[in-house]
């Protein structure tokens, strides 16, 4: 029973090689902007470029809006469903699955169709487009935020906590903010990090809404400046890694999720 699991190690080796090879390739490429030298110049160029800072800030801001909108939408809904309307749970789960099934490209297709002409010509204005962008992102990350919060609620036996709080005289605001949300902190933060990782890299929606986001910037850079774009790729990877790392830390075994662009 204690024999050396050669087959297992072999597969793991292949898997990790597959995983790391492109990353090494990217890193290698990004360091070679000056012929035959290893320098970090590509990174310097990228980080100092004003467009980098602008688009990154823009996407970061959009991410924050998305997180806020998502949380406000999901948390109270999930809580209410858990508490009062448990029979609605499968329906809500189905709805969240729906948004997963409609990929970004179809979403954009429909958005443009509806919002590029009167009466709902949101795309005419910048604010309108920003709004659409955030809504698009919310729809993309909704299933995962909901699932995270749902799992979090399941783990803390919402009903009993609420009843206990009520019997001690707490009103709804107190219950929500002092009892429920603190216990959901891990779940909400996990969702937030996932949203962040998704929004930063998102390409499709931002491109079509012609917004100055990070994803399209990266793609455009690839046309003209290969070295800088691979440096950017490494930066994006680092951000993703940190986000996932935070989720692991917070979730302690939360299921993997993916959202957004592919």
């Amino acid at each position, binding site marked *: 029973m204690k024999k050396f699991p050669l087959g297992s190690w072999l597969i793991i080796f292949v898997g990790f090689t597959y995983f790391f090879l*492109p990353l090494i390739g990217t890193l290698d490429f990004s360091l070679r902007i000056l012929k035959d030298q290893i320098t970090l110049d590509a990174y310097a160029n990228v980080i100092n470029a004003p467009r980098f800072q602008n688009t990154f800030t823009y996407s970061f801001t959009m991410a924050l809006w998305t997180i806020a909108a998502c949380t406000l939408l999901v948390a109270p809904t999930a809580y209410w469903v858990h508490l009062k309307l448990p029979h609605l749970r499968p329906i809500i789960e189905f709805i969240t699955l729906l*948004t997963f*099934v409609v990929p970004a490209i179809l979403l954009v297709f429909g958005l443009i169709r509806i919002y590029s002409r009167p009466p709902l010509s949101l795309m005419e204005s910048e604010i309108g487009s920003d709004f659409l962008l955030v809504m698009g992102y919310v729809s993309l990350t909704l299933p995962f935020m909901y699932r995270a919060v749902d799992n979090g609620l399941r783990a803390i036996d919402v009903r009993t906590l609420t009843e206990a709080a009520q019997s001690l005289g707490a009103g709804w605001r107190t219950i929500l903010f002092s009892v429920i949300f603190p216990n959901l902190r891990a779940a909400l933060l996990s969702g937030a990090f996932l949203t962040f990782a998704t929004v930063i890299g998102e390409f499709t929606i931002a491109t079509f809404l012609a917004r100055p986001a990070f994803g399209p910037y990266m793609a455009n850079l690839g046309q003209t400046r290969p070295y800088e774009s*691979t440096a950017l790729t490494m930066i994006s990877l680092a951000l993703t890694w940190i986000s996932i790392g935070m989720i692991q830390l917070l979730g302690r075994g939360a299921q993997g999720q993916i959202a957004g662009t592919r």
Partner: protein
Amino acid sequence: MFDGVSLEWLPQSTAIEFFGIKFSLPFTIDFKSNSIISAYTLSLQLSVTTALIGGIFGFLLAYAAILGGLPRSVRTALLTFSGVASNFAGVPLAFAFIATLGRLGFVTVLIKNVTEQLTGTPFDLYQTGFSVFGYVSLTLTYVYFQFPLMVLIIAPALDGLKKEWREASENLGASGWQYWRLVAFPVLLPSILGTMILLFSNAFGAVATAYALTGGNFALVTILIFRQIRGEVLQNPGLGYAVAVGMIFIMAGSLAIYYWLQRKSERWLKQ
């Protein structure tokens, strides 16, 4: 009329803001168009292939890390890396593959150097007709985010295999292989198939990766829609809708099958 597609279509306003699509019958689609059929064929081919490869490879990895007798740290590492890899899709992934398998890419050059050292003649990947912008490379790129997704989703199912089942089967005389064939694999099958369906629809709906890798030249269904919206093709609204409708059917169909398989496995495993 373009390429034999005609479409009559009644737009409806949306009920929910960010679900921009709501179709209503009647409309007719005439799918005699070559370009549409070839786009679907290509997309289906790519999606099925990467779902199968990613699914099988991901399953083997998850099995090795969870049930294969390896230390616990391997499992944690695998799950973390899978989380990163599956979220790495899109533009950055495409660039990473170009940097790795391009004409001057890391692996291309590595292969040249190693084969030169070993046999005296360098082996140039590109002489075989391979290109980082081609079908094989696209497949490899897609698999990169497919197999981690399989790992992440199938890991809890593997955890759910009760140790007692294995012991009971051994107690009744079964070998490890028989246990897998008669108990574990049948129990896991709905989950595995369901996840592969998920992988399929995941690949089918992907666009950013392919676009960033091939510059929009690869005629996938999603790229077709992309080009439509961009106005890069001779303007024909019918084409876009036709393709989009087909896509919705495929995605919805996949979802339905996935759902059915989930219910089945949940029923069996309910204690």
